[in-house]
């Protein structure tokens, strides 16, 4: 595991460190942008979640209340360089969950709006899954970074963790 991680980190280290900052800002902006519409209209977001038919007991409301703020905070964290490791892990888990939700909707033949908050009226589809995989790739590169560039908090070097 340790060998795999160090190989991964070496590969990522070859990437220009400032490119890592760019990936961080782009990924952060995606999450930040996605959160706005959901924060403004959580009821609409709750209905989008309900349309996936996977959330039981009316829990779509509590997800619709909390998730957009989580997206806002991790998006801001990535852009500003605040607790980046935590934001990357949450980002990755969310992207995997989003893809699972979309995949089951496609498999069950649901022709529903994605509710992703990026494009109005975007329907679930394979394009959205691929898009999320691109973001996941970005998150992987960030997770494997060796140096902290323009990260405000915490200042500890990754090697010290």
């Amino acid at each position, binding site marked *: 595991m340790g060998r795999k991680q160090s190989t991964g980190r070496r590969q990522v280290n070859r990437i220009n460190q400032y490119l890592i900052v760019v990936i961080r800002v782009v990924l952060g902006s995606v999450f930040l942008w996605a959160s706005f519409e959901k924060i403004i209209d*959580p009821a609409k977001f709750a*209905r989008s979640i309900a349309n996936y038919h996977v959330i039981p007991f009316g829990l779509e409301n509590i997800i619709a209340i909390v998730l957009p703020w989580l997206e806002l905070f991790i998006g801001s964290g990535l852009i500003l360089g605040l*607790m980046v490791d935590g934001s990357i892990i949450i980002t990755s888990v969310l992207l995997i969950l989003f893809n699972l939700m979309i995949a089951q909707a496609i498999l069950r033949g649901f022709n*529903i709006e994605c509710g992703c908050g990026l494009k109005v009226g975007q329907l679930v589809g394979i394009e959205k899954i691929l898009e999320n995989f691109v973001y996941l790739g970005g998150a992987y590169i960030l997770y494997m970074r060796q140096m902290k560039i323009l990260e405000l908090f915490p200042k500890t070097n990754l090697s010290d963790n």
Partner: protein
Amino acid sequence: MNFSSSLHQIYIYFALSFVTSFVINLSRTDTLPMIAEPLEIIDDIGQINDKISAPILREISIDIAKDLFDQNILFVDARSEEYYIEGHIPKAVCNDNLDSLITIMEEYISVDNGFVVYCSDDDCGSSEELAYSLQEQGFLNIYLFKGGWKQWVENNLPVEGK
């Protein structure tokens, strides 16, 4: 608290999100309940004639939808126009543009008249979405036919289109 620990950072993000979202939600004029409440279901045609003073969205079954169709209540097709052209409930109206749709609807009804919204089937979601959008535009009495086009056709009810 070790801020360099990824796990602690995750806790902080979740704590921040829960606290902020709950506070903001409670301070909103349109506070969203923590648990979603299902729509009221109309199971008796007698409930249809209720006087409506506040906006209400209620779910109807295929039987009630058929009764309302027989009473010449307006049907609004929430599917995209290409599906509407292929086939729709007779006299239903449809438009991809919300403003244009409202203009068309106002030729038939006023805001306090009841009407039915439907889409493809129980899984499509666009009928509920359109119903809420129309409610925001001032329409008061909306019936949501979740069975939609699929259930209508399966019951061999009249259709119009290609």
